[in-house]
């Protein structure tokens, strides 16, 4: 019952899960899937725009987590961020490896209505609550700050690339990004606290 656990319990459970993965416990992988697959799938879909390819990304990431769990460093990030950054990285790699035809098709598909609706969309209350909270915090950011942050995260652009894309001086891009990060950091203290 995910929603009944406190933040501290959830963080502790993540760490325990990693310890079990190190020990080769398949049930731990199953739990990791239950806990994060919907978030990772949504993230991968945001990048690749193809449900089947997004599933491939999630599969790669969770199997990498299973096989290379010893690479996880709790001093550097939470389990969630580790998985998110791997998913983002795999998804960006896929986009960059597509040939010209695939890129054209993907661009055309961006406007298509998503048909891969979840049969259990309301199952994970915690994730929905967190999504709503983050969305509201992002909505509170000035548009120019939100834009640079979204470009950095969802397009995989460097600060320099964002500056070129938006035709804004690099220094301004960095300032906007840092301001946005500081605001989110302050607004999401409770969420962050349980991840560390």
């Amino acid at each position, binding site marked *: 019952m995910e929603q009944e656990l406190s933040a501290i319990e959830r963080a502790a459970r993540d760490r325990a899960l990693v310890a079990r993965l190190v020990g080769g416990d398949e049930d731990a992988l199953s739990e990791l899937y239950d806990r994060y697959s919907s978030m990772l799938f949504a993230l991968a879909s945001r990048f690749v725009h193809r449900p089947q390819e997004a599933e491939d990304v999630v599969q790669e990431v*969770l199997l990498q987590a299973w096989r290379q769990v010893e690479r996880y460093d709790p001093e550097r990030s939470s389990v969630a961020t580790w998985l998110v950054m791997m998913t983002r990285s795999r998804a960006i790699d896929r986009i960059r490896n597509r040939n010209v035809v695939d890129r054209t098709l993907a661009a055309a598909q961006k406007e298509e209505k998503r048909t891969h609706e979840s049969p259990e969309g309301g199952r994970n209350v915690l994730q929905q609550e967190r999504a709503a909270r983050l969305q509201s915090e992002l909505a509170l950011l000035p548009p120019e700050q939100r834009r640079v942050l979204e470009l950095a995260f969802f397009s995989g652009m460097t600060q320099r690339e964002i500056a070129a894309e938006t035709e804004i001086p690099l220094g301004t891009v960095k300032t906007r990004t840092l301001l946005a*990060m500081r605001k989110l950091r302050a607004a999401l203290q409770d969420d962050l606290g349980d991840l560390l």
Partner: protein
Amino acid sequence: MERSDVFAWLREFDGSERDEIDDWGRLSPAERTQIERLDGEVFGLLAAALEPEEPSADLKQRIMAGARRPELAVLTPRPRAPRWLLPLAAGLTTLALGLALWMAGTVQSQRADLARLQRQVDELGLASATLETVRRDLAAAKQNLQLVGTLGVEVCPLRPTAAEGEDAPQGLLFLAADHQHWYLRTAGLEAQEGSWYRVWFITESGVVAAGNLNDGELDLGSPTMPADTRAVQVTLETEPQPANPSDATVLFGLGSEMIRLL
């Protein structure tokens, strides 16, 4: 930069930029580390701003199977989206042409086998035991030939895991319309002393031995195929009947590449 490393992203900001926003110069190293860590988490949390979406129901099954058997991790058989039809059709046409040529050779070879066996049966003076063996071989050959030519038969190409070339081994798995009766025909597998070519079906629940290609025999068949078979492989084993395959895979075919020829 390595995009999976959130700290690499944070390193795009230097101290002076940080000074403007976070009063960086007045922070202790521990405080800086803590802020960097928090920023990393904020960056990672952006994924949680997306509405969660459930992947298809069988993804978990595929991942768990992939954890148990790494070769299953690449098996994600599913229908392609319409946009793939044209390039897929072109690929399949090429494959079908190759398979049709290969199948023609297989049928011709089997007909020759049948004729040889029939001649042996027709010869008087065969010992009864020998005659019984020949009759069994004849019945099996006829059955296999019938399967190869049956309407609705599907074919899965088995490709060599080592370098490809004219002399590289290859195989074709014929599967009857009932999805049970199968027949495997191989070529280019050289008999080796003290080694056995063993056929395996890779299923959702594990690997199932299907038999050996013994004594120079290049084909194998059976009226049953394990449920949820995803792939077939041929390995070169140093024991005649190992319970599990070694790493020495010589041929491999995916169920998702199966095509209907007739």
